[in-house]
């Protein structure tokens, strides 16, 4: 199976699904799921393959596809999340309008992401990138209303990014007269640092926008919260990681690790500046997330913060940091997709995702709670979930690299993460079950299945982190990093090793001991939720709930400091541009007389200048 | 003090005032003009309603409502009294004048059975599962009630004895 065939299947299947949807919705659903599963199987079979093949000659440029371990890792994540979110869509989107279009766009976005990671030259990268951006725009604005505004915000910022990309691409072409990534990479080492820096900055704008790096993040909170939940999972899980892929490609493949280390020194070097940006990306969005009341908005801001960890790991540019960043990308794809799906399931059943009005759903949706719990633990970086290992790698490289302040930001961000992760858990699932949610049911199977797969990934990679770390180590070595001493249970090293099996068994054994003690004591009486301490009085069920303003004291402290200044600035900029344009438009009065007057005035100015200043 | 009584007498018909020692004043008003008197008093500085109390004059078949009004500025303590009929006792609420009248009226409603027209919340305040006539009426037989309600419940020993036989 060649790469071209894969892309043909992916794109062709998408259109076929659309056409089939006109005939029968059931067949369309089956085909969509089958298609994503087939793609997943094909990509999985590609494991270990490397190669490059040209597939088209476009205006004299040789367009090529390329596969190596790096693109395989991203491709497998794309394919997995693509199939899981399509399965999740089956019941989530049931009964909604324009479903053919929805599935078409879902599959197209997936196919284009595969195209991005497999493209071997900058032009095909750009083409797939644009397909992805526009497909995403259409999907974000699927719900219309405020979603349209969110989509517009996204596409405007995307276009800015694409422009920056085009600039960078053409400047590279002007220097090396080729678009092929490998060719450029082999010749770029002779370029001057200033030139490299300018190219990198241009690419960083493109990928930073897609990756929602502060200060280019402002499209993300709106887009994530307005998009349909299965697509939010894709969006947050993998689509913004295309930016990460772009960063890796531009920093470590195009420019290369050796040339990169010569770009400035000390605090003023390129990767240190990027790391500082990433640290800001961790710190501020974490606390903005803390203050949100919409579950998906919390997760959206949390995505920005987690992306900060990924970029921090990649930017710091040691083999530990790179491994941590790449691993965190995989982990974030798994737990954030899981969380978005779980929130989607809750929204599907209750019709709301407002954290202030939900509560006690655990009694009705225990399975979804378990999934959310696992996702939240991964998000926190709880030991025995995959998030722990990747964050541990990032912290360790920061501490040993004598960057304790970056490490502090990363660790402190984690504590903010605990607060909002628990807020989601508590305000949706814990506490008293309000009367209106008495009839809520558990999520359907097609929602449970993808969540189970993702939670298994989270736990498995948490206990046996060696599985993905080995692949990441191969990537790291191919990019010129030092090889890591990866075992199946973590990392062995002289400055503090990691052994997840030890942690796992320690906790397991102490769990068993405590559980035995617990069982030996008298069995407790199971009571209903209205049998609750209320200073002696009886409170009817559901009337005894505390969720609103969950962290009120901390809101009062941080509210004056945590403002999305960037968004305010952009919105002001957009407002100013609009005012300017409105003002310009007044010239077009529609009367012939005024146009004649403009012409006369212009001529008069010309003549005055000619006569008075003798310019020409 | 006398000036105030004079003023009240001048404005409201059938209103009578009487000094009850230092700084204490009793104003008696007919049913119809009590609220007007309260309104007037509030406007002239007595903006604090301290309490509303009720007296059961069973022989005369009348309830007496007493509004205790005071002011923070003057040492004067006014009692505005009125008599209302005891059977199906109703009286307009004083909430529009004094907001805090609601809770006092609720209590009087519960303990005397006076219906305050316009009070939105006259739910029971102290009593649980009350089925008798309101307990503060003088024709309420307390001993009888206690005997029926509390003493009729068997003690544990009695219960066991009953069960065994």
């Amino acid at each position: 199976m060649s790469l071209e065939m894969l892309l043909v299947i992916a794109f062709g299947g998408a259109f076929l699904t659309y056409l089939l949807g006109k005939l029968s919705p059931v067949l369309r659903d089956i085909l969509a799921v089958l298609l994503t599963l087939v793609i997943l199987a094909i990509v999985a079979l590609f494991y270990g393959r490397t190669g490059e093949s040209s597939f088209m000659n476009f205006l004299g440029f040789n367009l090529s596809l390329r596969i190596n371990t790096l693109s395989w890792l991203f491709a497998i994540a794309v394919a997995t999340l693509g199939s899981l979110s399509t399965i999740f869509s089956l019941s989530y989107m049931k009964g909604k309008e324009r479903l053919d279009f929805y599935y078409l766009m879902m599959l197209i976005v997936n196919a284009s992401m595969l195209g991005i990671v497999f493209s071997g030259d900058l032009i095909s990268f750009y083409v797939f990138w644009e397909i992805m951006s526009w497909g995403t725009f259409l999907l974000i604005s699927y719900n219309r209303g405020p979603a349209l505004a969110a989509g517009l915000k996204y596409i405007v910022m995307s276009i800015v990014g694409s422009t920056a990309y085009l600039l960078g691409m053409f400047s590279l072409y002007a220097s090396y007269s080729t678009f092929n990534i490998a060719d450029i990479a082999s010749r770029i080492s002779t370029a001057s640092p200033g030139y490299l820096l300018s190219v990198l900055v241009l690419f960083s704008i493109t990928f930073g926008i897609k990756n929602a790096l502060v200060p280019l993040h402002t499209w993300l909170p709106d887009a994530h919260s307005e998009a349909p939940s299965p697509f939010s999972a894709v969006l947050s899980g993998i689509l913004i990681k295309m930016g990460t892929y772009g960063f890796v490609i531009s920093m470590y493949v195009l420019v290369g690790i050796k040339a990169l280390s010569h770009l400035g020194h000390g605090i003023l070097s390129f990767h240190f500046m990027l790391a500082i940006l990433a640290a800001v990306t961790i710190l501020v969005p974490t606390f903005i997330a803390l203050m949100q009341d919409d579950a998906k908005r919390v997760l959206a801001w949390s995505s920005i913060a987690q992306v900060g960890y990924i970029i921090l790991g990649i930017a710091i540019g040691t083999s530990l940091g790179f491994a941590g960043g790449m691993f965190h990308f995989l982990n974030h794809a798994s737990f954030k997709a899981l969380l978005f799906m779980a929130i989607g399931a809750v929204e599907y059943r209750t019709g709301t995702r407002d954290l202030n009005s939900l509560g006690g759903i655990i009694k009705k949706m225990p399975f979804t709670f378990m999934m959310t719990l696992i996702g939240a633990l991964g998000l926190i970086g709880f030991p025995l979930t995959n998030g722990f290992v990747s964050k541990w790698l990032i912290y360790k490289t920061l501490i040993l690299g004598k960057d304790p302040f970056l490490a502090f930001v990363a660790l402190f961000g984690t504590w903010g993460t605990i607060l909002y992760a628990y807020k989601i858990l508590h305000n949706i699932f814990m506490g008293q079950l309000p009367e209106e949610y008495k009839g809520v049911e558990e999520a359907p199977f097609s929602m449970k299945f993808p969540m189970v797969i993702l939670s298994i990934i989270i736990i498995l990679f948490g206990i046996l982190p060696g599985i993905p770390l080995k692949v990441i180590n191969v990537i790291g070595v191919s990019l010129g990093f030092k090889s890591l001493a990866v075992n199946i249970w973590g990392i062995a090293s002289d400055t503090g090793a990691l052994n997840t099996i030890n942690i796992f068994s320690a906790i397991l054994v102490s769990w068993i001991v405590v559980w035995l003690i617990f069982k030996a004591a008298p069995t407790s009486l199971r009571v209903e939720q209205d049998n609750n301490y209320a200073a002696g009085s009886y409170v009817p069920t559901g009337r005894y709930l505390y969720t609103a303003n969950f962290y009120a004291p901390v809101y009062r402290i941080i509210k004056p400091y945590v403002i999305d200044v960037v968004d305010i600035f952009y919105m002001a900029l957009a407002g100013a541009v609009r005012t300017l344009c409105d003002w310009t438009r007044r010239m077009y009065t529609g009367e012939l007389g005024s146009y004649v007057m403009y012409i006369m005035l212009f001529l008069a100015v010309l003549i005055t200048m000619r006569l008075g200043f003798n310019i020409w | 003090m006398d000036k105030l009584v004079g003023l009240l007498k001048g404005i409201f018909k059938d209103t009578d005032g009487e000094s009850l020692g230092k700084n204490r004043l009793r104003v008696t008003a007919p049913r119809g003009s009590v609220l007007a008197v309260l309104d007037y008093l509030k406007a002239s500085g007595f903006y604090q309603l301290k309490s509303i109390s009720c007296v059961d004059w069973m022989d005369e078949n009348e309830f007496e409502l007493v509004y205790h009004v005071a002011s923070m500025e003057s040492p004067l303590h006014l009692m505005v009294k009125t008599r209302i009929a005891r059977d199906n006792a109703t009286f307009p609420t004083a909430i529009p004048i004094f907001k805090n009248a609601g809770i006092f009226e609720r209590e009087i409603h519960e303990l005397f059975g006076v219906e305050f027209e316009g009070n939105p919340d006259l739910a029971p305040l102290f009593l649980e599962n009350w089925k008798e006539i309101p307990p503060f009426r003088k024709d309420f037989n307390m001993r009888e009630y206690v005997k029926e309600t509390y003493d009729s419940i068997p003690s544990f020993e009695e219960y066991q004895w009953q069960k065994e036989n």
Partner: protein
Amino acid sequence: MDRNNLIKWLKEPKKMGNKYSLWAVYFSTACGVIEVPPVLTSRWDAERFGIIPVATPRQANLFLITGYVTTKTLKAIIRTYEQMAEPKYTIGFGSCPINGGMYWDSYNTIKHLDKYIPVDGWIAGCMPRPEAIFIGVTKLWGMIDKGLATGYIRYRENYDYYRGNQEKLFGSMEWPPLYTLKEGTNDG
């Protein structure tokens, strides 16, 4: 005090534990509550006997009812009593819960607390001095030792009696029965 009697500890750990670790939730119904703070704080220091005040009935095993009980508070008392963990002990404090005391003919004060919840011990007086609380606690220790402080078992076994009396007073209760009612309940 046999607190340091190791043999007894090994023989009857549950009994000894319950004896010397009485965690009190004291229900401040009336004047009696004035007497409790001196008992718990520096003057009489009940902590040396393991008695500490706790915040919720879930944590407590000693229930002090200090003063007269109106029907409305009785509801809260029953609720609190039912929420306590077993084994639990109740002490009625002052003459009002015993027989109504000076409120013997009040329309709204219940006269005999033990008709509604089981009471293990009484401390008579109006009001009893703090020392009397210690005497009461010592008596309670004796009862626990001899296995006589079984109010909670009485409550469970005769739940239809207690629940019936409660319902006689309140009409219907808001919360469902704690234990299953036996047949032939005298529901008021």
